[in-house]
């Protein structure tokens, strides 16, 4: 049966290729969407990943950065620096803000840097200076390219006009691009003089970060201290929760498309072989053996489609990153696993349609030639 099935499929190579390509198209959609969200989720914590902090300290009860507000008295930053095991404590101000430039508006996260806090600033530069002084701003290079502005341009951060003095790399994401300004400018905008948002704590060598975080919470009143991994994980989880419904919705659409394509292909394959199925039944092949063969057929088309989709994704991802730089794509093992699981479900559902057809094929048809 399997040999018959495989050879029949091989005999209709054009049809098989078209089906696999159709299925691949649907799966590419699913894989790209997963990769966009994985990439975005990763990019959302780009600052937290690159900032020189083994432990993040913030207002008590705050657990992350994305869509969060944190206010800590500035004197607590100095107190944190004195906690045993702390090598350096760098305070930053942080707030969501509207950036307007060249007629476009961007919702961004602004990081306010104290003079000398270079390590808390951008970690890679495309042009200009990394440290903005008063009246200056460092923008993501991708956003500058999107809006066509360059060094020396004037932008508005809420109601404050600032000059672009640097273009940073790796700081753009669709959800939260990061701009850097002087802490004094941001404090002025936020009317938050005397406060900071987060304190980036560098631990002494050999320090256990969880223990250090616990110590900080004990010794400094009303703060939450989290090791870097836990802090970034909180943000990623939040991002995934926010995107989960969209991912699920788009996955359902992509998968539904794949089901339709595979079911139609498998159905047309068996419909085209109606006479041969009737002959097989007349010769003594049981329905369940044909169901199994149809199952293998749909699994084969699905597997082929998935493999093609991954190949296409491998080719398309660098291309997309070049053509659409504002999108960050990341293909994770989890995304691949989900795509494979979706493919399996799709194959099972798709096999049901032709199986119903097979059940109705009358072996008597064999006599009608």
């Amino acid at each position, binding site marked *: *049966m399997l*040999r*018959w099935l495989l*050879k*029949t499929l*091989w*005999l209709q190579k054009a049809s098989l290729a078209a089906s696999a390509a159709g299925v691949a198209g649907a799966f590419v959609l699913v894989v790209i969407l997963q990769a966009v969200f994985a990439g975005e989720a990763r990019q959302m914590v780009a600052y937290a990943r690159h900032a020189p902090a083994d432990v993040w300290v913030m207002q008590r009860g705050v657990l992350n950065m994305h869509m969060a507000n944190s206010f800590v008295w500035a004197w607590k930053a100095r107190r944190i620096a004195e906690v045993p095991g702390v090598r350096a404590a760098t305070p930053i101000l942080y707030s969501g803000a509207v950036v307007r430039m060249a007629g476009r508006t961007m919702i961004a996260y602004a990081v306010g840097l104290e003079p000398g806090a270079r390590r808390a600033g951008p970690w890679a530069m495309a042009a200009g200076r990394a440290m903005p002084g008063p009246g200056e701003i460092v923008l993501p290079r991708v956003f500058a390219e999107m809006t066509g502005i360059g060094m020396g341009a004037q932008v508005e951060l809420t109601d404050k006009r600032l000059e672009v003095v640097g273009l940073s790399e790796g700081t753009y994401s669709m959800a939260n691009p990061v701009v850097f300004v002087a802490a004094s400018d941001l404090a002025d905008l936020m009317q938050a003089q005397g406060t900071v948002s987060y304190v980036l704590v560098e631990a002494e060598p050999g320090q256990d970060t969880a223990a250090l975080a616990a110590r900080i919470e004990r010794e400094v009143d009303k703060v939450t201290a989290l090791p870097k991994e836990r802090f970034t994980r909180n943000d990623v989880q939040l991002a995934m929760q926010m995107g989960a419904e969209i991912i699920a919705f788009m996955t359902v659409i992509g998968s539904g498309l794949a089901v339709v394509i595979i079911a139609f292909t498998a159905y047309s394959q068996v419909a085209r072989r109606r*006479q*041969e199925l009737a*002959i*097989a*039944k*007349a*010769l*003594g*092949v*049981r329905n369940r053996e044909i169901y199994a063969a149809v199952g293998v057929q749909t699994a084969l088309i699905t597997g082929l489609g998935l493999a093609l989709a991954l190949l296409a994704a491998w080719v398309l991802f660098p291309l997309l990153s070049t053509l659409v730089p504002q999108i960050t794509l990341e293909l994770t093992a989890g995304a691949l696993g989900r795509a494979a699981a979706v493919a399996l479900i799709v194959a099972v559902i798709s096999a049901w349609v032709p199986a119903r057809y097979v059940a109705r094929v009358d*072996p*008597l048809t*064999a*006599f009608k*030639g």
Partner: protein
Amino acid sequence: MDTTLMQVRNLSKAFGRGHTEVRAVNDVSLDVRRGELILVMGPSGSGKTTLVSMLGTLLKPSAGRIVLDGVDVTRLDEAALPAVRARKIGFVFQAFNLMEALTVEENVLFPAQLAPGGTAGARVRAAGLLERLGLVERRHARPPTLSGGEKQRVAIARALINQPPLILADEPTGNLDSQSGQEVAMILHDVARDADCAVILVTHDPRVEEIADRILWLEDGALRDRRAERHSWVRCPVCGMRVDEWTARHAAEHEGQRVVFCSQRCQERFFEEPTAYAA
């Protein structure tokens, strides 16, 4: 020793209900012995295919029973019938019905996977059958590249691969030229004789009559053993079809002569314009 392979008793098949009921096969009884080649003949629409479909367990009878090799197959569950077909019955179809994607050898071996023992022993039998049927050179060829005669020989080899006691052949010479048809008929004759197989052959082909042990005439669903009867072939003056003038159901006098027709329709057409057909 009882050589009866199949007993058919009061077999009937009706399609439709009430006023629209048509009895395609009506109260047919028949004994089939091993090694016997039986021809089932009859006009189109006489119920030949319906009868052979029931004998092949592909169609459930409305009444009656069929005992094949000691098993009443009419009482078997639908799910058990494929196994009966795979092990006890070999089919030869008019349209050859080979699997297009498979080679000659793979086509012959196709039913072997459905019978106990699988394909291991069947490969040896397949080699023997291909040799016997002159297909060794063509064993790796695919059906589209075969001639009609070769295709039908492959179909016969496929029917024999599981060594079934019964071969059902539906118009096996219908799509063949006269030489290939003769060849196929002789192969089926040899199968009945050498393999101790019963062969039931449904045909319109009068050339096959010579090799038959028995000829059964099916008309209007009823079966008659025709070898014992007188018969004389004449042509229907309207359509040219061969008709046995002794068993013909449609006959009439025209200008002092008896004219035999294949059907009521041809009889009516004849009398609408006798001069067109009388010559």
